[in-house]
């Protein structure tokens, strides 16, 4: 009896919140569980035409390539660049969240920020040194690291400046890629940093690690030893293949849930010390000014957050009817435990379905069935994590963290950092979608 329960009691498209949100249990089984009188096939009423064979089915195709790349019809699915003319300055590439799905960011589309270009590193010559307050300084090659028991886990990496356009006091009319494109999620494989620190014999009095990259500025950040022993990895694979050059080839630090900049790429040196180094990046860029003029330091944690990727700005709803609202949720403090979705700008909320398994400090995709009636709607998502942290509402966030005095016009600048409040997409009666604050 029990094994048929889900099927036999498949719910109808019952409303759980205003403006057409449908109980997530309608997604049980395969697709929507259509029941009752509400479901009508072919809502537009246009009759299908007789099928014919297309040309690609009538000729021999191309032979199979060594490295495959996306269909030519997917050329628009790319990262967007902050420095397309290759000027001598930093360069960013943002993940096209509004054109992707699932939880894993393809390696070619993982976001990347490089403050002084991407170094062209020969993996045979690259070395990682661990020294400072250790019993025996050690040097590791990529080959040697590959011989340790490797750990594989999912983890998002998010720039502290991701979503910075939302500090603007007016909503910018830009895509989820332009707003939230500086977060991505991968399966990382590497050696536990604690294993290497134990091998070097770290001094218990060492509280910090200065991690340094092999790029032209030797970017360095201070990492608490505590984090190293919690869950840090020296990652050498990304989604099953070696790291992408822009993501730290041949090895990078992975400090799950902490500011992207701390996940030091091109990792070449870790020095155990008794105090933070107060490097440029922890001194300036990756600390925040608060309303009133106080400043945050060592704000490592990327807090619980979610945003809707579909439908979102630049999408067009072509007709009223059934849609599935979909997005990603993640928290530096653990697993996502709940995501609520609203279609009426936060007046009422329904619980979204989480597509498991939910991993700590990693993307969880949420989905929510929605019947759009052709009238204006405001779509929002709000996430909670297993530690009980809730994604803040925008009014509360702005009260605590502030916003700009003037509207921001350049989506590439960073008025402030660590934005984790709610994103709202306003649908008008033509199905066009705007970015709104609600």
């Amino acid at each position, binding site marked *: 009896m029990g094994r048929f329960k889900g099927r036999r009691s498949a719910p109808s498209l019952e409303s759980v919140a205003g403006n057409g949100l449908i109980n997530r249990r309608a997604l049980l089984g395969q697709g929507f569980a259509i029941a009752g009188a509400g479901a009508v096939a072919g809502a537009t009423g246009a009759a299908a035409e007789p099928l014919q064979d297309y040309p690609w089915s009538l000729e021999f195709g191309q032979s199979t390539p060594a490295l495959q790349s996306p269909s030519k019809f997917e050329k628009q699915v790319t990262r967007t660049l902050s420095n397309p003319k290759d000027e*001598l300055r930093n360069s960013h590439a943002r993940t096209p969240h509004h054109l992707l799905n699932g939880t894993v960011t393809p390696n070619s589309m993982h976001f990347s920020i490089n403050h*002084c270009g991407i170094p062209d590193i020969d993996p045979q010559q690259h070395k990682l*040194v661990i*020294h*400072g307050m250790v019993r025996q*300084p*050690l*040097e*590791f090659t990529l080959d*040697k*690291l590959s011989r*340790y*028991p490797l750990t594989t886990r999912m983890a998002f990496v998010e720039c502290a400046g991701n979503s910075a356009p939302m*500090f603007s006091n007016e909503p910018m009319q830009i895509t989820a890629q332009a707003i939230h494109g500086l977060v991505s999620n991968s399966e990382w494989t590497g050696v536990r940093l*604690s*294993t*290497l*620190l*134990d*091998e070097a014999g770290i001094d218990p009095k060492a509280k910090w690690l*200065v991690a*340094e990259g092999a790029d*032209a*500025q*030797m970017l*360095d950040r201070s990492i*608490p*030893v*505590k*984090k190293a*022993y*919690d869950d840090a990895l020296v990652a050498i694979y990304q989604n099953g293949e070696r790291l992408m050059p822009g993501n730290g080839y041949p090895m990078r630090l992975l400090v799950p849930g902490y500011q992207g900049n701390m996940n030091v790429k091109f990792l*070449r*040196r870790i*020095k155990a*010390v008794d*105090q*933070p*180094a*107060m*490097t*440029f990046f922890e*001194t*300036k*860029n990756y*600390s*925040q*000014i*608060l*309303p009133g*003029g*106080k*400043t945050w*330091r*060592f*704000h490592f944690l990327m807090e619980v957050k979610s945003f809707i990727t579909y439908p979102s700005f630049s999408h067009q709803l072509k007709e009223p009817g059934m849609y599935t609202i979909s997005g990603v949720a993640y928290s530096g403090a653990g697993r996502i435990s709940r995501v609520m979705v609203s279609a009426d700008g936060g007046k009422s909320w329904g619980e979204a379905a989480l597509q498991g398994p939910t991993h700590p400090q990693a993307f969880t995709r949420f989905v929510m069935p929605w019947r759009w009636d052709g009238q204006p709607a405001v779509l929002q998502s709000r996430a909670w994590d297993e530690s009980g942290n809730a994604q803040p509402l925008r009014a509360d966030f702005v009260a605590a963290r*502030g*916003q*700009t005095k003037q509207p921001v016009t350049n989506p590439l600048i960073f008025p*402030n950092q660590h934005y984790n409040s709610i994103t709202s997409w306003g649908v008008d009666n033509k199905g066009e979608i705007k970015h709104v604050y609600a």
Partner: protein
Amino acid sequence: MSMRKPFAALALVLAFGAAPAFAQNAGLGKPISEADIKQWDIAILPDGTGLPPGSGTPAQGAQIYAQKCVACHAEGGKGGGAPGAGPLVGGAPLTNGIETQKTIANYYAYATTIFDYIRRGMPYTMPRSLKDDEVYALTAYILSLNKLIGENDAMDAKTLPQVKMPNRDNFIMPYPDRI
């Protein structure tokens, strides 16, 4: 402090029995002396640990600046000479709003950060081409432009960590338990 699990050591002890060479760890890291790391060891701590010998004055720094820095950072450190090269002087009060530009004078907590960043990454197109004396001199010049030291004050391993930065005591930690 979290538990430190001797995972690799345990695995190898199980695999190789009592082989003493493997008793403590995997033994895959190659021992290296601190002397052999010297070329790489450019980390500097705010108390001055790691600062190299040498010194420089604002006047010496001004000359180097005119040759190697002015193209990007502009005359007098005003910035705007190249994209991304922000101003090295000035800075509005942080009470002006959350997007106030962070500068050496209004934001940095320690003067050692300036030395460290110049030595690591400047000039942008020729990183680590400056001698330590030149880095001290440039640091002194920038601090002097900001009136954080006198125009004749030399910067060295002893004086640099003692420079009192105006914003030093204005920081708070949102997650002290994570450190």
